[in-house]
C-alpha cells in the first residue's frame, strides 16, 4: 500500500522534483567526505571573499574556505539535528496518539490535557534553557524540540487512529481475540502510515528552520566547524563587504525547506487520493445535447400580458465550453399576480430553473441559451449591477432551508433592515420601522428582530426569510420548496401566510414543489419538469382531471394525498437520470410503460394541445385510451 503511495507521489511533477531534491541534499551531505572538493576548514586568505569561480563554484568565505565544501559538511550537522528531533517526536507522539485515539475514554482525556499543556509552553525559551543547562549541546536541544512539538502531532495521530478504530476489520480483529497491543501495532499503525509520512516531512521542514536558527544564534558546534545557520550568521556580519555569502547559505536552507514542504503536500494529496479514487464510480462520457430554440415550431407562443416569459432556457454547469447541460428548452410564462407551481422529483431541474431566473447560478453554472423576459427587460446578459437592482425589488426568492438561509452572525432584524436598505434610500430609523412592519406582515412579534438566527425556530426563520424577500416589494416571488424542511404542523401556517401575502400584495408567485397537495392548494397552473425539461404545462384542474404526460400521471398516482387506503402507494420504478446520462430521445422513456422505439429515437418536442396546454409526449392518445380502460 505504501508502495502505491510512493508511486502516486512520483507521478506528480512537484512530488517527483521535491523528492529528488531532498534525496540529493541528504545524500550529498552524508557523503560530504567523498564529494566535497576541499577541506571545509582549509583556509587560504589569498582567495578570501571571492564570489563564484570555476575553482570554487559557490565562492569562498572571509578566510578563503570553500563555501560548497562547508555547506556539504554543515548539512551533516543540520540534517542530523532534524533526524534527532523527528525521532524523539515520533517516540512520544505515535504511542500516545494511537493510545488516545484507539483506547479512548479516560486515557484519551488525560492525554489531551497533556497535549494542551505542551501546546501552551513557549518552546523556544525551553529549548534555550536546555541549551543553557546542557552547555550548548545541540543534541539535547533538538531532542527537546521534538518533545515540545509532540503535542500537535499526538492530536494528528489520535484523530487518524480514531477514524481507523471505526473500521470493520478492526472490530473483526477484536472479535477474533487479537490482543489490543497487537491490534494497535499490526492494524492501526500501518493504516496511519500515510498521515505519518506527511507529518514527518512537514515537521522536518519546520525543524530545519529551528536548527539553523539556533546555529545562527551561535549555539551548537563552535567555529570553525561549518553549520548552515552559522554560515548565514557569517554572511550577516559581512553584509557590507561580501553579501554574496548570504545566498548559498540561505539558499540551501530555503531549498531544503521548500522541497520538504512540497514533498509533504504531494504526500498528503497522494494519501487523500488513495481514499477518494476508490470511491469514485467510473464516469460515463457525456452525450452531446441538442441545441435549443432552433426549431421554432416547438417554442411556445408568447403571452402578450406575461410578467415573466421564459423561452428556450438552457443552463450548463462546469468549465466554459465543456458544460454539462442540466436544464434545457424550458419555456413558460407567468402572468402578473398569478401563482404557478413548478413540480417534479429531486433532480428534475426545478431549483436550477428558479436560480437561473434570479441569475444566481453560482461560480460553475451559467445560462447557455434562451431568454428570460421580466416585464420589458431581458434578464439573460443583463449587467451585474442592473441584475442586482432587479433582485429583491422585482424578483425575490425564499429557499428550502430556512435555518441556513440567515447569516448566523447577525441579528435577524439587521438582516431584514439590510434587505430594506438595499433598495430604499432611507434612514436607519425608517428602515427599523419598515423592518417592524415587515415582521408584523409575516405575523411575527417585532421583538424577534433582536434575536439571532440560532435563537429562533425553523418556522420563524422561514417567516423572517419571507420578510426579507418582501423587503424590496417584488412583483414576482420564487418560493423554492418553502415548507419542505419544516415540521408538518408549521407547513400549513407558512402556506396560509404565503396565500394571504400573495392576495394582499398581488405579486406573482412561482412555487417550486414536489408536493401535489401544496401545489393544488395555492396554484392556478402547474408546470411539470422531468430530467431538465418541461414535460407538461396545464391548469391545476386539467392536470388533476386528465394528465397528458405519463410522468405527470405517475407522479400524481404516487401522491400520498390521493392514495387508496389499504393499498400500497404506487411508486415510479427507477430514478431520474443524472444529466450526464440523459438519453437522446424522451428522458422519461426508461421508466415509461408506454415508451416505444419512436420515443427513444430523437429528442421529443412539446406538443401543443387545446387552450394553453402542452405536453412533451408523442403517445398522448395511448395514454388517454389506457386511462379510459383503467377507469372502465
Amino acid at each position, binding site marked *: 500500500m505504501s508502495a502505491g503511495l510512493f508511486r502516486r507521489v512520483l507521478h506528480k511533477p512537484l512530488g517527483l522534483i521535491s523528492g529528488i531534491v531532498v534525496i540529493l541534499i541528504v545524500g550529498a551531505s552524508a557523503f560530504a567526505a567523498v564529494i566535497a572538493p576541499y577541506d571545509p576548514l582549509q583556509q587560504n586568505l589569498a582567495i578570501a571573499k571571492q564570489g563564484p569561480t570555476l575553482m570554487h563554484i559557490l565562492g569562498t568565505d572571509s578566510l578563503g574556505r570553500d563555501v560548497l565544501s562547508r555547506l556539504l559538511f554543515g548539512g551533516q550537522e543540520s540534517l542530523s539535528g532534524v533526524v534527532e528531533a523527528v525521532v524523539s517526536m515520533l517516540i512520544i507522539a505515535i504511542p500516545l496518539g494511537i493510545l488516545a485515539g484507539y483506547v479512548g475514554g479516560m486515557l484519551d482525556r488525560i492525554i489531551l490535557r497533556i497535549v494542551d499543556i505542551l501546546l501552551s509552553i513557549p518552546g523556544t525559551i525551553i529549548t534555550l534553557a536546555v541549551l543553557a543547562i546542557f552547555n550548548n549541546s545541540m543534541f539535547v536541544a533538538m531532542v527537546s524540540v521534538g518533545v515540545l512539538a509532540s503535542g500537535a502531532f499526538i492530536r494528528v495521530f489520535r484523530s487518524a487512529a480514531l477514524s481507523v478504530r471505526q473500521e470493520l476489520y478492526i472490530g473483526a480483529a477484536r472479535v477474533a481475540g487479537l490482543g489490543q497491543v497487537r491490534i494497535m501495532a499490526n492494524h492501526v499503525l500501518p493504516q496511519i502510515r500515510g498521515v505519518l509520512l506527511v507529518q514527518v516531512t512537514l515537521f522536518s521542514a519546520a525543524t530545519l528552520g529551528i536548527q539553523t536558527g539556533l546555529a545562527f544564534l551561535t549555539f551548537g558546534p563552535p567555529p570553525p566547524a561549518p553549520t548552515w545557520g552559522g554560515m548565514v550568521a557569517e554572511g550577516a556580519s559581512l553584509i557590507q563587504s561580501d553579501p554574496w555569502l548570504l545566498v548559498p547559505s540561505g539558499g540551501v536552507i530555503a531549498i531544503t525547506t521548500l522541497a520538504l514542504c512540497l514533498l509533504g503536500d504531494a504526500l498528503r494529496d497522494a494519501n487523500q487520493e488513495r481514499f477518494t479514487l476508490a470511491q469514485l464510480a467510473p464516469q460515463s462520457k457525456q452525450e452531446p445535447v441538442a441545441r435549443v430554440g432552433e426549431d421554432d415550431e416547438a417554442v411556445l407562443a408568447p403571452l402578450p400580458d406575461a410578467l415573466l416569459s421564459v423561452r428556450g432556457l438552457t443552463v450548463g454547469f462546469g468549465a466554459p465550453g465543456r458544460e454539462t447541460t442540466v436544464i434545457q428548452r424550458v419555456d413558460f410564462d407567468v402572468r402578473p399576480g398569478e401563482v404557478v407551481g413548478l413540480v417534479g422529483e429531486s433532480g428534475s431541474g426545478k431549483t436550477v430553473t428558479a436560480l437561473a431566473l434570479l441569475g444566481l447560478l453560482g461560480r460553475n453554472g451559467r445560462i447557455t441559451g434562451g431568454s428570460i423576459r421580466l416585464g420589458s427587460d431581458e434578464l439573460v446578459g443583463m449587467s451585474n449591477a442592473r441584475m442586482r437592482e432587479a433582485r429583491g425589488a422585482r424578483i425575490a426568492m425564499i429557499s428550502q432551508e430556512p435555518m441556513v438561509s440567515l447569516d448566523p452572525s447577525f441579528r435577524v432584524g439587521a438582516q431584514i433592515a439590510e434587505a430594506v436598505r438595499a433598495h430604499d434610500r432611507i434612514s436607519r430609523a425608517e428602515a427599523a420601522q419598515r423592518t417592524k412592519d415587515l415582521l408584523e406582515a409575516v405575523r411575527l412579534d417585532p421583538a424577534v428582530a433582536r434575536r439571532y438566527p*440560532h435563537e429562533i425556530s425553523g418556522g420563524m426563520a422561514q417567516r423572517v426569510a419571507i420578510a426579507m424577500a418582501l423587503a424590496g416589494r417584488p412583483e414576482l416571488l420564487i418560493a423554492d420548496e418553502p415548507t419542505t424542511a419544516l415540521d408538518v404542523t408549521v407547513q400549513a401556517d407558512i402556506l396560509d401566510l404565503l396565500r394571504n401575502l400573495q392576495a394582499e400584495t398581488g405579486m406573482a408567485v412561482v412555487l417550486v414543489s414536489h408536493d401535489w397537495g401544496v401545489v393544488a392548494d395555492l396554484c392556478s397552473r402547474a408546470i411539470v419538469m422531468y430530467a431538465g425539461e418541461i414535460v407538461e404545462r396545464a391548469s391545476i384542474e386539467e392536470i388533476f382531471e386528465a394528465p397528458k404526460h405519463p410522468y405527470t400521471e405517475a407522479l400524481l398516482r404516487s401522491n400520498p394525498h390521493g392514495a387508496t387506503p389499504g393499498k400500497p402507494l404506487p411508486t415510479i420504478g427507477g430514478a431520474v437520470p443524472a444529466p450526464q446520462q440523459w438519453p437522446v430521445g424522451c428522458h422519461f422513456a426508461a421508466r415509461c410503460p408506454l415508451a416505444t422505439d419512436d420515443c427513444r429515437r430523437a429528442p421529443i418536442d412539446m406538443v401543443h394541445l387545446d387552450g394553453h396546454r402542452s405536453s412533451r409526449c408523442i403517445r398522448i392518445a395511448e395514454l388517454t385510451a389506457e386511462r379510459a380502460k383503467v377507469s372502465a
Partner: protein
Amino acid sequence: MVRLIVNRLLLSIVLVVISSIAIFLLMSLVPGDPARTILGANATPDSIARLRDQLGLNQPVLVQYGTWLGGVMHGDFGKSVFSGDPVLNLILTRVPVTLSLVLLSTLVIATIGTGLGLLSAVRGGPLGKALDAISLVGLALPSYWVAIVLVALFAVAIRIFPATGYIPLTEDPGGWILSLILPVAALSLGGVTIVAKQMRDSAMDVLERDYIRVLRATGVRERSIVLKHVLRNASLPSLTVVGITVVGALMGAVFVENVFVLPGLGTLVTQATISHDLPVVLGVGVFFTLFVIIVNLVIDLLYGVLNPKVRVQ
C-alpha cells in the same frame, strides 16, 4: 466570561509550575556541576563554591524549586548570575521592545493576511495562485534570513531604514516606527501568508453558503456581502490561526531581535543562554508563558464577540 478568565489564570499558574519544574529537574539531572558550567573551566574552587551558594545548589532540588517559586509569587525572579541585576528589572526594561515588535506584527498579520485572503477568495484565479506560491516561499524562508536580506536591501543597498537599533516610542514616535518597519516585515511574512491562506479557504466556503445566496437574492450589494457577511463569518476560523501565528511571532522575535540588535526579551534570553545565566532564562520563560496564555485568552474572548452562539449572556 469571568469563569473563562479565571480558568485561564489558573491554567497559567499550572503551566508556569510545570515548565519550571521541568527545567529544575533537568538542572539536577545534568552530569557535573552547573556552577562549573556557568563559570567555565578556568573558575577557581572558591568562586564555584560562592556561586553554588548563591544559586542554592547545595540544597535539595525540591527546596531550590520551592525557594524560586516562592520568590516568583512575590515578584522576585532572583538575580542575574552574570550582572547581579534583579531579573525582574532586566525583563521590565526590555518588555516594551518585544511587545512593540510582536503587537505591530500581529496588526500586520491580521489586517494584511485577512485582506489578501478575502481578496483572493473573491477574485480567485491568478491572485490565488500567486498567494499559494508566495505562501510556500514565506514558509520556507527562515525569518532571520528574511531579516538579513531586508537589511541588505533596505538598510545597506538603499539606505531607507536603520539597519539596527531601537528608538523608544516615548522619545521619537517617527523613529520608533522607522526602527521597527524592517523587523516587523521580517517577522510578519510567514504569518501573513498562513492567515491569508486560511482566510481564503474559509471565505470560499462561506461564499457557497445559502445565506449568501439569500442576501444576493434580496439585492444586497456584493461589496456589503463580502465586507460584512463573508468577512465576519470567515474570520472565525482564521482567528484561531491568527492566535497561533502571534505565538509564533513571539518565538520568531528571539531570532529577529538578534539580527536587528533590538534590546528586547529575545536578545536578553539569547545572551543569558550563551552566558548560562539560568535565573534570567527562567524569568523570560515565565513572561513568555504568560504572554502565550494572554494571547489565547484574547482570542477566546474575540471568538465570543464574533460568534453569537458562544457569546455568554
